[in-house]
């Protein structure tokens, strides 16, 4: 674990964080350790957000840093053998919500575990999910949300998938910020995941 990497990310020192991550990688630090540090830093960022110290800019910048570090680290990671490569997952932050940190971590974790991830980005309208599902025929759909307004958007999205006749062809997982089991039930999704690890194990379970 690199306390310094965690701190530079948490303190929004973008250039330092990226340089340090490269340095760590070059000096033989296991990629998984670097990613763990990213997650630890994200926890701090999330906590500061909750405490009203950090706002949208910090969430976005932290997401950017983790994205950049992930790109560096990814080629050095061994792809897990457990999952058949190529199972498709469509992921996005639902309509009205612009938060992407949680989603980005989920995308990353799915990606390094061998899934073919289609990231629709943030503030994704239900129809965009439907269109993508029809296009790529994924096994799993992940709906991310941070704000409470995402509850309604998740419900709308699941309903739109159902209305498009695609509900039976996909498993839908929800997660992020204020989302919990109750929201999963309200939105009529299949499962709720508390973190990116759960997202991976859910997806693996559905693609066996």
């Amino acid at each position, binding site marked *: 674990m690199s306390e310094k990497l965690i701190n530079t990310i948490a303190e*929004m020192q973008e250039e330092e964080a990226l340089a340090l991550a490269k340095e760590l990688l070059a000096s033989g630090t296991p990629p998984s350790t670097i990613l763990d540090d990213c997650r630890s830093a994200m926890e701090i960022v999330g906590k500061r957000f909750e405490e009203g110290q950090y706002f949208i*800019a910090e969430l976005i*910048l932290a997401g*950017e840093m983790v994205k950049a570090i992930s790109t560096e680290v990814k080629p050095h990671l061994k792809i897990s053998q457990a999952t058949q490569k190529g199972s498709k997952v469509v992921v996005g932050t639902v309509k009205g919500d612009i938060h992407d940190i949680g989603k980005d971590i989920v995308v990353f974790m799915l990606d390094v575990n061998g899934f073919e991830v289609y990231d629709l980005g943030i503030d994704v309208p239900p129809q965009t999910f439907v269109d993508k599902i029809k296009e790529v025929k994924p096994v799993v759909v992940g709906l991310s949300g941070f704000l409470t307004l995402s509850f309604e958007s998740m419900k709308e999205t699941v309903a739109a998938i159902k209305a498009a006749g695609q509900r039976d062809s996909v498993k839908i997982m929800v997660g992020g910020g204020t989302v919990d089991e109750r929201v999963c039930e309200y939105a009529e999704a299949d499962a709720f995941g508390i973190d990116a690890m759960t997202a991976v194990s859910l997806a693996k379970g559905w693609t066996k």
Partner: protein
Amino acid sequence: MANKVIPDEKKTAEQLYAERVKRVEDATALNMPDRVPSFICQEGFPARYAGITYEEAFYDQDKWFAANEKTMVDFAPDMYFALMAGVSAPGKSWERLGYLQHKWPGHGIGPDTAFQFVEGEYMKAEEYDHFLDDPTDFLIRVYLPRTNTELAGLGMLPPLKGLIMGASGFSPLLLAPPVASAFAALNDIAPIQAKWSAGEAEFYKKMTKLGFPVLFYSLSLAPFDMITDFLRGLRGIMLDMYRCPDKLKAAQDKLLPFMTAMAIGRAESTGNPRVFIPLHRGADGFMSLPQFEEFYWPWLKQLMLNIIDAGLIPMPFYEGRYDQRLEYLRELPKGKVLSWFDRTDLFKAKDIIGDVTCIAGGMPASLLHTGTVEEVRQVTKQAIEVIGKGGGYIMTSSTSFNDGKPELVKAWIDATKEFGVY
């Protein structure tokens, strides 16, 4: 006092017009009018009320104006909102341009869905330098081609600084088909826009004759919002605060005189002193107080001071919540600003800033959708008693009430007249 008041029905339109203007002006100056004034942000409500579609507001001006007239006559607030682009605009003109920054009813969204602004990164971070060097050149050669499919050809023009050598060297470029087609598009929309504007002018004239003053004609934006709304998008500008803070500030410096001129020009040419400034990204939750102080407030404050210096009244709309940043409003001169609030706690705001600025708001738009007549009357009464105490208050809704129930809107405006007498 109430029993001496002559009922509105017995006054001429001219009298009513003068009284309505005075009422709003008195409240703005922190004086006590004869009664609490009201304005409505009707947006799409007239379409619903008169039974036309939102789409018709973009394609059939006569129907749209008739719907607005009916709304004003039937509900009789003191003032009403200007018909802003976005709520209604010449759809044919936007079609011709291939305008991408709006989805409007029937175009990208359903015929009865309210318009949506399409935020995007229309200026990339690395283009700040171009913008700062020559904003107009950037807007004509990069921004317009990006935001209007049919103006793509403008991107082929050489740097406009070349015009210093005269227009003749430039002119052969107009023969290039993409450039010619961009100019053709602009030529095509000219009469559409002119006709639309003339129609609006007629509408306002008619409303004046009927005794209804419009709240404002002039509109401006906080420089930060101008950049995030039209150029960089939320994500872009949030990263800019960390990655290129100096350029973000320099761009605001560059825009401030333009935003000021935009505000003052229209207000002076129409004689209506109020300048509407809808605020977007400076609210609680969008940025920290240090960020607000460093990136947002200085330029917004200066814009408002410039407007006040010109003898006009800035009318900021504090969308979202401003509970954490009300104190800043004390930095503006007393009785010169009409501050409209959305979800800020106005009972507290009255204590904190009620002595320096007129406060507008008080009716949650959601209540006009979901409430009962009794609830609406109750909320109106309470708002008038607390926020209206001693004057300096204008009743309006927290935001536009597109889907408000007519009987609730009626109850609300009537209750304001009933309980609002000082």
